């Protein structure tokens, strides 16, 4: 391949990937580091412990939901959606990695202590060596996938909410959080688009697809309220201008969801919110969380000195 003149070869779209080093072909080239050139010091007026706690919340939402969505791999209705859901899962995993790393940098005391000589980086220690009660994700993301109808309904509400959140976070006074959010906005915009299109397609498809979607929406709707409840940490993060009070995006999310529901010809579910106050944000999780963590963490925990 060395003798190839890349500018003259248009027979394959893959040729453009070979920036300089052909040995990297399988992984593509021209990667962008979302944190390139970003000042990583904690800004004045920001409490490191609160910043860490806040990053854990956003990071755990992404991490746990990424794990749930990854369960669709090889099980989706068809190959195309298998890959689509895996891509979405990987996008969220990438966000989780950056957010957990930021949490560890802002307050190293949140990172579980591993045996001396362990090569596990702080973000991995946070993901794989924390116990259930230390996770700060909402219960909404830990619930089992259900069928494709439930999955699409859950993804629509989650990505609509997270997109509104990240759009505001892009103006965070913490430059790292702002950069992570800016990268996430592009990813989650696609997730919302994907979920919205499937939502309408299922609603206007067959009798069976519509029935399953309506049932799925009724399943996730009561749990959604938890995403908009503001915990103490989020309130302090908003005060210090690096975070967002999730209640403030409620109206925007509502308007988007209303639009999708109208397009799909589906009525807003009339079901009460489940639970009160922040649940998962204070470490109180549902039964499903323990099993999810067991599967996600078992290999890493068996090898605390392992290199990956």
């Amino acid at each position, binding site marked *: 391949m060395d003798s190839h003149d890349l500018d003259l070869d248009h027979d394959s779209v893959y040729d453009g990937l070979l920036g300089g080093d052909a040995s990297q072909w399988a992984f593509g080239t021209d990667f962008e580091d979302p944190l390139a050139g970003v000042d990583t010091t904690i800004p004045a007026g920001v409490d490191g412990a609160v910043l860490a706690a806040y990053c854990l919340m956003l990071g755990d939402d992404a991490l746990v939901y990424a794990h749930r969505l990854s369960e669709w791999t090889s099980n989706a209705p068809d190959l195309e959606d298998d890959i689509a859901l895996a891509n979405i899962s990987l996008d969220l995993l990438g966000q989780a990695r950056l957010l957990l790393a930021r949490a560890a940098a802002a307050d190293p005391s949140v990172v579980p202590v591993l045996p001396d000589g362990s090569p596990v980086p702080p973000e991995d220690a946070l993901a794989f060596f924390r116990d259930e009660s230390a996770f700060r994700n909402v219960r909404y993301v830990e619930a089992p996938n259900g069928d494709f109808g439930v999955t699409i309904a859950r993804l629509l509400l989650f990505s609509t909410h997270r997109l509104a959140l990240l759009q505001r976070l892009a103006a965070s006074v913490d430059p790292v959080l702002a950069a992570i959010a800016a990268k996430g906005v592009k990813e989650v915009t696609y997730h919302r*688009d994907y979920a919205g299109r499937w939502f309408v397609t299922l609603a206007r498809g067959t009798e069976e697809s519509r029935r399953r979607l309506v049932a799925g929406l009724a399943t996730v709707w009561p749990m959604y309220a938890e995403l908009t409840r503001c915990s103490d940490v989020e309130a302090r993060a908003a005060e210090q201008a690096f975070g967002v009070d999730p209640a403030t995006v409620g109206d925007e999310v509502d308007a988007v969801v209303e639009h999708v529901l109208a397009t799909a010809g589906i009525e807003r579910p009339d079901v009460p919110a489940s639970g009160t106050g922040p649940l998962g944000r204070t470490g109180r999780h549902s039964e499903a969380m323990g099993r999810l963590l067991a599967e996600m963490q078992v290999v890493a925990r068996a090898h605390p000195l392992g290199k990956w």
Partner: protein
Amino acid sequence: MTVQPEWPLYEIFVRGKRGLNHVHVGSLHAADDEMALRHARDVYTRRNEGVSIWAVRADLIVASSPDEKDPLFAPAGDKVYRHPTFYAIPDDVPHM
């Protein structure tokens, strides 16, 4: 309306970062045209391959048949005078 057992097949063309043309990269099934584009993005551009996608329903493509190979293509085989090989091309002319 009859229920179709399978989604229609789409052929996918991607223009690479440095490519001039869209190039056929494969095919996929999708529920409708817009979903075909989304699926193509997920299936064929997840490793940073492209900057533009075309999706075309496979049944809308008019294709030549292998049976017609001789009448269609063989006659061009011996018309050497149709190739403009008698011109000198300057070194700095690309994409010829």
